[in-house]
């Protein structure tokens, strides 16, 4: 019963700060929508320069295809040699595509030029994918030519893309964005809550009351959980209705996973808030943790690659709750998987939640009897 009054007070305090409400509910929704449009890992419209030093018809035909493709934006077409380094330095193009004739290339020398792709390695992701596209266009062209010359390709690949046939990046990123925003909000809201009480000096009064430490703990955490869940519902609603991301699996498990995740992340934020001294520190720590969680979650880089490159850091991914949430979310949305597939991840998430919650409760007890 006492708990009820505490939760009511917390909620009243949040409602009384209109700006906070905007930040907690309206802003994230807008963010999700904007992010949905921005976080496209679909590379298209890549600015390139074509340097055609070849006299072959093939070179001009391939160039025509490059210009016609929506994947590229041929910014400049040159017939004189260019110093690639200088051009790339200026940053207007990500790659130069050079066609050269080379005499010693066997019987095909007179029809097919040498192709050099000179890439800007700084934005390696874009340039690599762009190089891949160029490869694809050239390959298609050559294949046609060969087929007409009576030399069909001996092997061809038929690709079937499951779960996301049009490879829409929003399908991949969308649910993750919701998870991300949830994390940002939860961490920031909670990390502040205790610092604020301390700064307002009302913590003492709370402690002097008949509220038990456990009750204070739950009472302050509960509104954050409620806000988190509410935001999640809103976020997922937006992501499904606005961006048409398919939801093929069970909403129930989505909620369960989110609840466990919220418990984990809020406990984490609570621990931060008792460790830091003022709100600036809370902010910095929260941000720091966020980035860490994000980088090591499989959201931006596949986990397999991290294991191959830096096993020591990859171990951290095993205790990263965001990693499990992202996996479960992606599986529920796109693959329609049931718990048979992700029960291990759910268990891991639950375990992390339990550990973090206990830690934060212990920490809280210690903190209040300082």
């Amino acid at each position, binding site marked *: 019963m006492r708990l009820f009054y505490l939760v009511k007070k917390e909620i009243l305090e949040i409602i009384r700060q209109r700006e906070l409400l905007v930040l907690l509910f309206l802003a994230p929704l807008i963010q999700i929508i904007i992010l949905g449009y921005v976080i496209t890992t679909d590379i298209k*419209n890549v600015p390139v320069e074509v340097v055609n030093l070849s006299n072959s018809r093939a070179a001009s035909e391939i160039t025509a295809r490059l210009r016609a493709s929506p994947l590229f934006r041929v910014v400049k077409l040159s017939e004189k040699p260019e110093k690639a380094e200088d051009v790339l330095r200026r940053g207007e193009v990500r790659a130069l595509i050079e066609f050269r004739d080379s005499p010693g290339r066997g019987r095909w020398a007179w029809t097919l030029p040498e192709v050099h792709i000179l890439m800007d390695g700084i934005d390696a992701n874009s340039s690599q994918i762009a190089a891949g596209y160029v490869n694809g266009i050239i390959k298609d062209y050559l294949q046609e030519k060969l087929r007409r010359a009576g030399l069909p390709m001996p092997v061809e690949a038929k690709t079937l893309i499951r779960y996301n046939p049009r490879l829409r990046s929003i399908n991949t990123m969308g649910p993750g964005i919701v998870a991300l925003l949830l994390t940002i909000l939860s961490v920031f809201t909670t990390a502040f809550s205790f610092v604020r009480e301390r700064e307002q000096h009302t913590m003492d009064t709370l402690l002097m009351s008949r509220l038990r430490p456990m009750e204070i703990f739950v009472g302050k955490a509960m509104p954050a959980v409620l806000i988190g869940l509410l935001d999640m519902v809103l976020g997922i609603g937006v992501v499904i209705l606005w961006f048409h991301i398919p939801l093929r699996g069970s909403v129930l498990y989505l909620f369960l996973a989110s609840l466990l995740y919220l418990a984990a992340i809020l406990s984490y934020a609570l621990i931060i808030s008792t460790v830091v001294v003022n709100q600036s520190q809370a902010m910095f720590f929260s941000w720091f943790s966020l980035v860490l969680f994000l980088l090591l979650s499989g959201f931006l880089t596949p986990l397999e690659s991290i294991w191959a490159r830096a096993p020591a850091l990859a171990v951290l991914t095993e205790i990263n709750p965001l990693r499990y949430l992202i996996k479960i979310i992606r599986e529920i949305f796109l693959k329609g998987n049931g718990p048979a597939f992700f029960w291990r991840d759910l268990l891991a998430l639950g375990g992390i939640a339990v550990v973090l919650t206990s830690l934060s409760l212990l920490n809280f007890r210690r903190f209040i009897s300082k």
Partner: protein
Amino acid sequence: MRRLRAVMAKEFFHLLRDPRSLSVVFIMPLVQIFIFGYAISFDLENIPVAVIDLDHSEPSARLIKDFERSTVFVLKPLSGARREGDFAAADRALRAGRVKEVLVIPAGFAGRIRQGRTAEVGLIIDGSDSNVANRIYQYNQMIIQRFAAGLKGLEDIFQVKTKVYFNPESRSVFFFVPGLVAVILLMISAMLTASSIARERELGSVELLFISPLRSGEIILGKTLPYVLVALATGSFILFFSHFWFGVPLRGSLPVLLLFALLFVLTGLSFGVLISTLAPSQRVAMLGSVLATLLPSIMLSGFIFPLDSLSAPLRALSEIIPATHFLRIIRGVAIKGADLRHFLKEGASLAGLSLITLSLAVLRFTRLRRARR
């Protein structure tokens, strides 16, 4: 001047009294750079692939070998396969995420090749991560093309030579460091400023500043200058560190780069002041500054997500985000070593934006002050 110094000094002491904050401010980006340097890369590695070979011929074995030899893929046996060609098991493995791709070589593969016809191989890719799937698709194409060309002795036709400039090992740090620097500069200048002023408003001590004989510009300068210095110091530290530890190039003249950093910091600062005049509490000020400065700067500046792929209206939006120009300058001048001449437009944009935001901040601050009188 003396009054200005007094305001600055107080702000400085407040900062210095907080060694934990300072260490966090320094250590945090360092750890991030470490992760970028060691764990994140643009090359895919270690992607698990399952194979269903229904042909068992010499060519099929060779194709499988080609896949195995690539650094991108690693072959995994199909667990739970009860027989040859257990597609159900493959489907399960794909769904569970144990493999990201299944390579299917149908029966008659070698036969068709021998007959001079086109043999098909099937590739089932897990599309739930679209970026990875896209890259996998391209790697597949390259491997199969090379294999096919090899069969006909046409290897060198399909040779497209690539050369990578400025970052021969495709290390992600080179790409992300400028962004990380921008983020930390923004965090310190926008967030700390916003929270500092908001805190004073909360405590009520801002009234003292309001009624002091100092001009609004002087007050703002005094309160924010320490943060400017801290921001610049931290930013430079990060750049130098990545240079010495990870070999991220650091070219161009340092004073010029510092100048641009200063302009960038000024924009962050002005935003911080603006937000602090609008926010009723410190907490709101901080959240607000994060949402208004940090997130757009991360999303729409080309820090992580390429700007080329954005639709026209969003691309236009990105042009008024200071971080976009700052990143272009740093990437171009500091890392690629370009001549400053080519980035005058960006420099001017940055200067213009900082002037505008600064004036807005001072105006807003003055108006608030006058309202209190």
